[in-house]
């Protein structure tokens, strides 16, 4: 085994012989694909629930790491390291989520003589604490969203009064956020003092469950803000570049639903400013490999720093489609010590003048009519769109079991076109081709969104758009009526005629005596008589 340690930006040969991918689902498959393209042997890991999963079968080899529960499998550092050692992998790619931003995994890799594909453990530690990141950005002269710079003393003596005092100072509405957070988890909006303490405690509990750290802080909730983020790459030689920005304003429960690159409506000058702010933050932590700096864009046109995600993002693909740089290839080369490629530097040089437009929609096993409640199940039909300018990164196929143990993201549908209108038309076309059966997905939400004039004009890009405009109760009955027609037709076709032996009747009343419920939430009521 020989690792290439030369410092040329040449991309011949391969960065590693064997890489272990410490993740599952669509992102594991995406990294496996990059490995295969680079001639790297890809080693997957799987829990018992994922033994037959797409990613486990796509890899050259897959190692069992434990039971379905993430805490006993994908989140176990020692299981990942043991699998890497047993398979003699030279590097570990963590994907996103799970252990991707945990210094513990980076440390364990180093101790085992394995390369961690990502920023250094110190960078992870500095950025993983969102409060510390806010302080660093402030010190570097990068404006941050107004809020607290220290963790709230949850449960401490007289803490309620102190927390309320902080919230009053910041001004309502405020967001309660987890210091160790990410992906919108452990985050809550609070509109008045009456809800504050409940929200802080719930957020702390959720954060403790999700991240093992219950520290939370407050940030001003900016109405009508946009979420804009910058893709960063850094090499071991100290060069840091921005590969362009993404707009990820369309969110629910602070989780992204739609992402696009570039961010619509920015001037090239604004883009340059934003990219430079992101690079400043990255410099303060000596960023290597890939990361994303997130900002709020206020209605007044200010960029306020939110946090840095020190890993590959779910939505990295739209940047790839616009910049023509394969970010996972680049991550692997950077991890083996190579400087940024000529191709990447050239893409960074034109990042403020993007030549194309790409849009991604996240297809998750969630019911958008029930406040996006998870809807796990078995995928009975899975037919993906194709054709010019369409990319589907999926982690499932027909027959896949979508387990409640994991994130409900099934696939990312991406489209690219010469400009935003072209990309939008392509997206609408591709969504018409997407056929999914067996569980409810977010597809109808995306179809609705793409048909909205204020989304097409980009005026509707704001983080509170979904809450203000998404009214599924107005859409579902129309679709249901059509579904009833289709079912009647199919049933009539299937049987040729009504079942025999039933005497004919006149017109029935047709009135609904159905006692079923239709409401947000994950509980269903059934009538029972004792």
């Amino acid at each position, binding site marked *: 085994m020989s690792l290439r340690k030369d410092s040329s930006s040449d991309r011949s040969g391969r960065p590693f012989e064997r890489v272990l991918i410490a993740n599952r689902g669509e992102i594991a498959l995406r990294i496996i694909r990059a490995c295969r393209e680079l001639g790297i042997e890809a080693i997957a890991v799987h829990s018992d629930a994922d033994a037959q999963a797409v990613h486990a079968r796509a890899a050259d080899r897959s190692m069992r790491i434990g039971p379905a529960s993430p805490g006993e499998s994908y989140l176990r550092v020692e299981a990942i390291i043991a699998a890497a050692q047993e398979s003699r992998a030279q590097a570990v790619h963590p994907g996103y989520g799970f252990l991707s931003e945990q210094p513990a995994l980076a440390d364990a890799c180093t101790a085992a003589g394995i390369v961690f594909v990502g920023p250094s453990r110190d960078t992870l530690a500095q950025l993983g604490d969102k409060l510390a990141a806010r302080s660093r950005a402030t010190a570097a002269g990068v404006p941050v969203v107004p809020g607290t710079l220290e963790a709230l003393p949850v449960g401490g003596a007289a803490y309620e009064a102190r927390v309320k005092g902080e919230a009053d100072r910041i001004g309502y509405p405020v967001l309660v956020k987890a210091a160790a957070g990410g992906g919108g988890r452990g985050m809550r909006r609070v509109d008045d003092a009456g809800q504050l303490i409940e929200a802080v405690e719930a957020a702390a509990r959720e954060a403790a469950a999700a991240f093992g750290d219950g520290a939370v802080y407050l940030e001003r909730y900016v109405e009508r803000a946009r979420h804009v983020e910058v893709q960063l790459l850094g090499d071991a030689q100290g060069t840091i570049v921005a590969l362009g920005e993404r707009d990820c304003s369309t969110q629910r429960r602070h989780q992204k639903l739609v992402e696009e690159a570039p961010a619509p409506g920015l001037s090239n000058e604004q883009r340059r400013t934003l990219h430079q702010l992101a690079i400043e933050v990255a410099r303060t932590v000596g960023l290597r490999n890939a990361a994303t700096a997130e900002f709020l864009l206020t209605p007044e046109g200010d960029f306020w720093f939110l946090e840095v995600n020190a890993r590959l993002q779910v939505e990295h693909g739209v940047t790839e489609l616009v910049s023509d740089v394969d970010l996972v290839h680049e991550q692997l080369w950077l991890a083996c010590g190579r400087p940024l490629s000529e191709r990447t530097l050239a893409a960074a040089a034109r990042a403020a003048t993007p030549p194309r437009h790409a849009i991604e929609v996240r297809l998750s096993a969630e019911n958008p009519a029930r406040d996006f409640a998870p809807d796990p199940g078995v995928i*009975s039909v899975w037919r993906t769109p194709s054709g010019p300018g369409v990319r589907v990164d999926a982690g499932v196929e027909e027959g896949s079991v979508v387990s409640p143990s994991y994130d409900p993201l099934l696939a990312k549908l991406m489209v690219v076109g010469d400009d935003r209108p072209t990309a939008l038309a392509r997206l609408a076309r591709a969504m018409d081709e997407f*056929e*999914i059966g067996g569980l409810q997905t977010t597809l109808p939400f995306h179809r609705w969104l793409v048909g909205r004039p204020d989304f097409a004009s980009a005026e509707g890009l704001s983080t509170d758009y979904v809450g203000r405009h998404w009214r599924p109760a107005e859409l579902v009955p129309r679709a249901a009526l059509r579904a009833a027609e*289709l079912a009647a037709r199919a*049933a009539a076709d299937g049987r040729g005629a009504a079942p025999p032996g039933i005497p004919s009747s006149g017109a029935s009343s047709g009135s609904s005596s159905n006692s079923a419920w239709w409401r947000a939430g994950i509980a269903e009521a059934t009538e029972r008589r*004792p």
Partner: protein
Amino acid sequence: MNDTERLRVTIAELPLVIQPATTEVAAFAPAGRGELVRELARSADDRAAGRRRLEVVVGGWRFEVTVESALRAELRDRAARSAAAHHSGAHITLRAQIPGRVVRLWVVEGEQVEANQRLLAIEAMKMENEIHAPHSGTITKLYVEPGALVERNDELLTIG
């Protein structure tokens, strides 16, 4: 076969029932772009009652639909109503719609609750989901306690 034979088409979880005559059905447009119709497995009961179950997706919205003879369905409804007439005091039992863990329980047995009041929270797919009372009443039975793991369709509580 009589042309005025009617079908009862019921959509699970939606108060939607249509009863077209078989002659009207032929006029419904066939499945087009973004539409999907699939036959689902039938239980022995379904077969005995001549019921068909279908999965229908329209514009991404997924429905489970039952199709049967309207006349048969009415006879069954009538029988069920007369059986129920002997009892009184309807109770509503809330069931988990996804597997998860009960992380919060805000009520106790015997407690009076108002419509929309928070009852409990279930954590699933790393998210905490609150469940609210569908109407006011008394919690007559709790089937779970904090920390309990629940499967889809498990009983959570009954409101009388």
